[in-house]
């Protein structure tokens, strides 16, 4: 299978040849069914994207329209060679994405295993566990910032201050900003992974489990040798979807740390916001957006290929 690298380009709209109608008429029915969604996605997402590409070659600060003009590759050059914030943001995005996706998978697996056994109130436990995924990220971010991690009024801070030896009272968002953001990301996405993995667990045939148990397998052995292998595809799906969403994550950073202190929690999404919106620098913001798209395509393509190879291996 080949994941083409030209996928993003509007090449799919290339059907626009003279024989368009004729060609359409003789398409297999499957292709016709795809067309409406494809056309919609191309128009709604690629039109603004083309505009973004155009602006990325412009020197344009919204507040200074008089200096607007063609900038060539200046915006890209600046970002790639001179902008420290860009390098930091690239690194932070990688840190956030990798650690949040892996930890979410791990914690989600733990959640799923917890509720995959029978015990009183199992339904309620599952309900409580999925809730963080349902809560609006903006609301969750404000709650975490003000009521949990706040160094004066936060419950987490109070807990460590009163229960841990040495009464540490770290200013979470200031001293451990990356960890705090990852914590909030994992809190939100682990339930999502749980949802995916739970169905995977439930699709394991009971007979197999039963047989293992009759053979005297411990719970751990059963988990290792039956559950885990069965779940690998589900984990791959979770990892892929999680990556697509977490790479873009914006709300918690915007509402909790504003990308700081310094650039400690500035990811690419937030840096783009700072350039394009806060600083009104349309050109640089657009160039950054284009770079993010290119990087995402490369990374996700590699990820899919890698997963594909793994899947064929099993």
């Amino acid at each position, binding site marked *: 299978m080949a994941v083409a690298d030209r996928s993003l380009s509007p090449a799919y709209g290339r059907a626009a040849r003279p024989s368009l109608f004729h060609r359409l008429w003789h398409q297999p029915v499957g292709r016709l069914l795809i067309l409406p969604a494809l056309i919609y996605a191309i128009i709604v997402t690629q039109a603004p994207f083309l505009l973004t590409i155009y602006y990325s070659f412009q020197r344009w600060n919204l507040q200074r329209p008089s200096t607007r003009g063609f900038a060539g590759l200046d915006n890209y050059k600046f970002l790639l060679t001179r902008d420290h914030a860009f390098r930091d943001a690239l690194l932070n995005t990688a840190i956030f994405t990798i650690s949040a996706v892996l930890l979410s998978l791990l914690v989600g697996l733990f959640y799923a295993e917890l509720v995959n056994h029978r015990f009183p109130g199992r339904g309620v436990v599952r309900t409580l566990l999925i809730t963080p995924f349902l809560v609006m990220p903006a609301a969750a971010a404000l709650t975490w910032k003000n009521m949990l991690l706040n160094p004066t009024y936060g419950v987490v801070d109070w807990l460590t201050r009163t229960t841990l030896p040495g009464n540490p009272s770290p200013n979470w968002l*200031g001293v451990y900003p990356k960890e705090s953001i990852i914590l909030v990301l994992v809190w939100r996405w682990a339930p999502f992974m749980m949802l995916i993995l739970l169905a995977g667990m439930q699709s394991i045939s009971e007979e197999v489990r039963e047989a293992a148990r009759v053979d005297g397998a411990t719970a751990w052995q059963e988990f290792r040798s039956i559950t885990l292998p069965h779940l690998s595809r589900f984990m791959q799906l979770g990892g892929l979807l999680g990556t697509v969403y977490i790479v873009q994550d914006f709300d918690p950073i915007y509402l909790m740390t504003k990308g*700081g202190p310094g650039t400690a929690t500035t990811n690419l999404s937030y840096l783009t916001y700072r350039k394009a919106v806060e600083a009104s620098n349309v050109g640089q913001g657009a160039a950054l957006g284009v770079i993010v798209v290119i990087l995402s395509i490369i990374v996700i393509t590699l990820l899919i290929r890698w997963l594909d190879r793994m899947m064929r291996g099993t």
Partner: protein
Amino acid sequence: MTRRILSFAALFALLLPMLVVAGGRATALAQDATPGAAGDASPAAAPAMMERDETISGTIDVGMVANPQMVALQDLVASGAFNEIYPNVTVRFTVLPENEIRQVITQDVTTQAGQFDVVTIGPFEVPLWAEEGWLEEVGEEAAADPNYNLDDIFEAHKQGLSTEEGLFALPFYGESSMVFYRKDLFEQAGIEMPEEPTWEQIGEFAKQLDSEEVSGICLRGLPGWGEQLAPLTTVINAFGGRWFDEDWNAQLDSEQSAAAIRFYIDTLREYGPAGAEGNGFTECETLFNEGKVAMWYDATSAAELVTDPELNPNAENVGFAFAPTQASPENHGNWLWNWSFAMAANSDQKEAALAFMKWATSPTYFQAIVEAEGYGRAPTGARASTYQDPGYREYAGGFADIVLQSLENANPNEPTIDPVPYQGGQFVRIPEFQQLGNDVSQQFAAAIVGQQSVDDAIQAANDMANQVAQDNGYQT
């Protein structure tokens, strides 16, 4: 099955209070309906100053920052006070916190999308935007209206909102800066706050007052050109420092500027509350009102908030002092800000927009809001007459004179001791300052947390400032 019952029980436990609220809401609505009659009565005094005008009609969109004074304005308009005078004008508000509304307004005005007829902006944006032709001149009409009394508005505000072409916005409320402190804590420590302290003294007091339960002083550490850099820039001014010299060479690493920045960050690190890098105006206000800090240096508009017994249990113990000086007894930092109503040049409802702007910034409105909500929600700091109002003087006895003098003395046109090529007391009025300020303040925040040394932060900030000056053609 039990599972299902349990989940529903949990669900209902959460829902029940909501249902009760919904019930309570119905009665609340019913109550709302009755004061309508009272609402009709209250602005009765108003027409004495502003006359009813049925000839102006239209629907205007107003974008406002969600500060308490604006929310009060929104409530008063909703109660019908505005339509008493302009029955044929409909006002639609978009009220958002500062960050969000700034984004929306900036995009709307700079791209000329034309969603808003009237917006709240300040002296940072008004002259820049007026020169681009995005704002409508309003001074001429305001001056022509004897009921409006344009002369009453502080000269410094008008200057900050003007270009050579005229006046482009009408100030709703204004502020300079001052120190708030807890008199009881000072007494306990056996120290006294002079009326005009120096920063050195403030640092000393902070050291003496700092304890386990109460931090010495709250200063804004939250990154942002309008947050951390507002007080910090006035400290730099007071220390005799500046952002740029006359040739636009960055001066943040000059002796005076660096001393000011070092003082600001070190004081916060040593005597400030935990998490100082996350504290902006709102957070500091909360900390001060909760009794967690002994001093607070910030905008004068906080005075009404820290003296409100409903917000601050220690309201009667709050003392006030002028914004500190350092290098010269004359330079208090020159903080001057106002939230003003400006009209978009591409508005197609100019008459109605002007009617609203004038009403909201008029003595008529001041009187109406005082009657409806009291002095705590009234817009102050824009008009001299506010400080002659006997009711307000009684309400604001502790701070009215300090605020008045600070407003009269603030000079954002010459904010620093050494000459500078820019204007602005707590900001540098160039379009690039928003980005520069945000980047620089992030560096300082990292220093407050201890991620990097103060000197490294100062160096990085200075380099950024030079970069901006070079890239944008300021340095020749």
